[in-house]
């Protein structure tokens, strides 16, 4: 009976893939995409994750978890499996899995979906599970600590520098997404601006007026958020108020930099903690809503399965399918950042060892599913509309008429009237060239939701989707700046001890300023970039995230070998090898490609030529050249760090193999669990 059920799941998944593969040139229902993905997830969870849990790690419920042994009722708390699943999922999923697939949709929906589904099963979920299980066996230690203790102090330091550098790029690129979504949009800006006073109000509610009453404060906050969303429409249509909230990209960027600094310096209860609740509520609610809507509406995918842009001529971002599809989609297939969460709060909450399978492996499958839904939301748009929104205005030709002409040249139809009507329907002045993925995802989601709930609410749904994305990007900006500050303080503490005190105000202000200046620099350059910035920053973010995943997989492999399971080390070595091939190729191309669309150095050289020929203002040109050099330097730093980590890890593995290294187990000794039996 069991066997039959799994056979059925396998057949359903296979049927889904078959339909996707065979239907070329005509539209396919999104339901097939969902069936194919879910079928594959279920099989992988049932068989591969069980293999990892039983054979590779030997998870054992008789062994007490850190939550049980060290339970303190606050962070070490034994938590029911499904509750922790939701908690972990809310922590790992953010804007990343939503935006990456939307950008990668320029290759068509199929390449991205294949990488999402097979990448997560063989790489992403494996990484999350291995790090979670490894951290669980080590009292919930962080990735940095494990890198230091398992491989060596140098690797620990390298991992920490990598995390800090990645944080800077991540915050810049996410902030840029918000800037592109809110620029010249009074409705969007008003709603997002309102979230700040709402969060402060909630903060005072649960800290001062009614201490600890987080739930009632959050419910009040949600009600106010709904008011702000509806109120935005009034603001946008009012001739007096609308100009007050119509800001240029540069003004929004500076406002966000100021916000990031203030949020990092203020006590957490005032801004950060209430925002965190609001965005968690919104995230879980909206993702459930999106899943239900796709299943109910079952829209047709209008985007072709594969477009001509796999040859590297794509207008959304430059580069061929290999390696850039695998760089653009990081979160959703494999994301190194998850290793930080999987070695943070979650391992301290596992009630039983075997729960790590559902939470680590299953949680990541769920994130991949969200990314597949984002891909669906992008693919239900007319391809012409998709490109009109996602391609920088400079590349479209500067005007609606020119854009229609350019897009027709690529073989897709869109008329200026169509874009104008759509912009009016969603309550924006224009949708042309709104790069960054968030606006086109919002149009896709609004189309789906209004398909399910009625056409007349399109504008409200669009701004709901924008608010939903901007809300948790801002939450990442404030928590990220703060975490960056902690790490910088820890590093600075090695140089001069007082700088390492996280509560010393001069140190707080100095380190916050440095972190904000770091991501703020990239953000402002991205806003000023004639091609919109996403073009150069998103690949850099993807590379850094995948390289962090490589560090995590090195740590994971070491853990597996030290546990005496070297014969199963291929489970982490295979994804590691693939990631190294992809990211090192991509970094090489980003730095050294002779094509100026791809290579930072080639672009700098071309700009120098333009200045010499007198076609480019020398001052502006010098700035653009400097940016290219900075980007190339960042990419080189990432590569150097990772090569260093991989080399030192491989040396360690070879030593262990020869038997000369210490194979002392770094796991916490066995303690009998009271939950077993």
């Amino acid at each position, binding site marked *: 009976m069991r066997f039959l059920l799994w056979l059925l799941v396998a057949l359903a998944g296979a049927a889904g893939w078959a339909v996707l593969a065979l239907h070329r040139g005509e539209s396919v229902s999104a339901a097939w995409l969902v069936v194919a993905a879910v079928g594959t997830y279920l099989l992988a969870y049932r068989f591969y994750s069980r293999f990892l849990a039983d054979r590779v790690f030997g998870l054992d419920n008789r062994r007490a978890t850190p939550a049980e042994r060290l339970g303190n009722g606050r962070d070490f708390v034994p938590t029911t499996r499904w509750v922790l699943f939701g908690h972990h999922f809310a*922590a790992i999923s953010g804007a990343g899995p939503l935006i990456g697939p939307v950008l990668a949709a320029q290759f068509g929906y199929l390449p991205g979906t294949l990488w999402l589904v097979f990448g997560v099963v063989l790489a992403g979920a494996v990484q999350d599970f291995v790090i979670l299980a490894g951290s669980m066996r080590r009292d919930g230690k962080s990735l940095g600590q494990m890198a230091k203790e398992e491989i060596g102090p140098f690797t620990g330091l390298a991992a920490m520098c990598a995390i800090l550098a990645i944080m800077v790029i991540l915050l810049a690129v996410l902030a840029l997404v918000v800037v592109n979504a809110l620029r010249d949009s009074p409705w969007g800006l008003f709603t997002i601006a309102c979230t700040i006073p709402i969060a402060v109000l909630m903060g005072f509610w649960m800290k001062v007026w009614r201490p600890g009453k987080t739930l009632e404060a959050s419910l009040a906050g949600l009600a106010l958020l709904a008011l702000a969303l509806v109120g935005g429409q009034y603001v946008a249509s009012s001739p007096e108020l609308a100009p007050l909230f119509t800001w240029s990209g540069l003004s929004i960027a500076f406002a966000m930099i100021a916000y990031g600094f203030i949020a990092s310096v203020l006590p957490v209860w005032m801004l950060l903690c209430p925002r965190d609740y609001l965005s968690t509520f919104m995230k879980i609610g909206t993702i459930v809503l999106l899943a239900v809507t796709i299943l109910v509406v079952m829209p047709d995918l209008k985007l072709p399965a594969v477009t001509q842009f796999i040859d590297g001529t794509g207008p959304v971002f430059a580069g061929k399918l290999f390696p850039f599809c695998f760089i653009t989609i990081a979160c959703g297939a494999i994301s190194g950042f998850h290793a930080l969460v999987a070695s*943070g709060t979650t391992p301290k909450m596992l009630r039983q060892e075997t729960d790590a399978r559902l939470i680590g492996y299953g949680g990541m499958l769920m994130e991949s599913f969200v990314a597949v839904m984002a891909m669906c939301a992008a693919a239900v748009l007319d391809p012409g509309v998709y490109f009109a929104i996602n391609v920088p205005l400079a590349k479209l030709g500067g005007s609606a008429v020119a854009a229609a002409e350019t897009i027709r040249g690529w073989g897709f139809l869109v008329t200026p009237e169509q874009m104008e009507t759509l912009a009016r329907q969603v309550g924006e002045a224009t949708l042309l060239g709104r790069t960054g993925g968030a606006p086109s995802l919002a149009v896709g989601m609004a189309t789906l939701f209004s398909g399910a709930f009625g056409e007349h609410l399109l504008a409200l749904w669009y701004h709901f989707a924008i608010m939903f994305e901007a809300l948790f990007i801002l939450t990442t900006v404030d928590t990220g700046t703060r975490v960056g500050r902690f790490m910088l303080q820890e590093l600075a503490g090695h140089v001069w001890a007082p700088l390492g005190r996280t509560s010393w105000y001069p140190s707080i202000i100095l380190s916050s300023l440095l972190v904000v200046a770091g991501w703020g620099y990239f953000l402002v350059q991205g806003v000023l970039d004639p091609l919109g910035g996403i073009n150069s920053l998103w690949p850099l973010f993807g590379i850094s995230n995948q390289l962090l995943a490589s560090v995590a997989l090195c740590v994971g492999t070491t853990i597996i070998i030290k546990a005496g399971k070297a014969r199963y080390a291929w489970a982490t070595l295979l994804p590691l090898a693939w990631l190294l091939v992809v990211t090192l190729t991509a970094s090489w191309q980003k730095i050294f490609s002779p094509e100026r669309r791809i290579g930072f150095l080639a672009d700098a050289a071309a700009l120098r030529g333009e200045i010499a020929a007198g076609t480019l203002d020398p001052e502006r040109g010098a700035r653009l050249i400097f940016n290219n050099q900075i980007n190339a330097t960042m990419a080189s730093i990432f590569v150097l760090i990772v090569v260093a980590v991989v080399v030192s890890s491989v040396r360690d593995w070879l030593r262990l193999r020869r038997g000369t290294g210490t194979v002392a187990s770094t796991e916490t000794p066995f303690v009998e669990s009271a939950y077993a039996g």
Partner: protein
Amino acid sequence: MRDRTDGPMGRRAGGLWERRGGLWLQFRERAESCLSSFKQLTGMPDYAAYVRHLRLRHPAWPIPTEREFFDLYLDSRYGDGPTRCC
């Protein structure tokens, strides 16, 4: 399951609620456990669970007020390390 045996009723046990009969008590207990799960899911502080934990494991320790507990919670949740991803 040993954390639950203590019961969420705490000091109210034997008071008003018990006189209304077992069904109401059961409903209240179920509702409180749902609420507690919801708080864990969203990462909110769960004061009732903390008090339960202290009574069970460290009966001699003083029980903090909800205000004091909230400060402890903020420290352990946002003290270090990222709690959110990209």
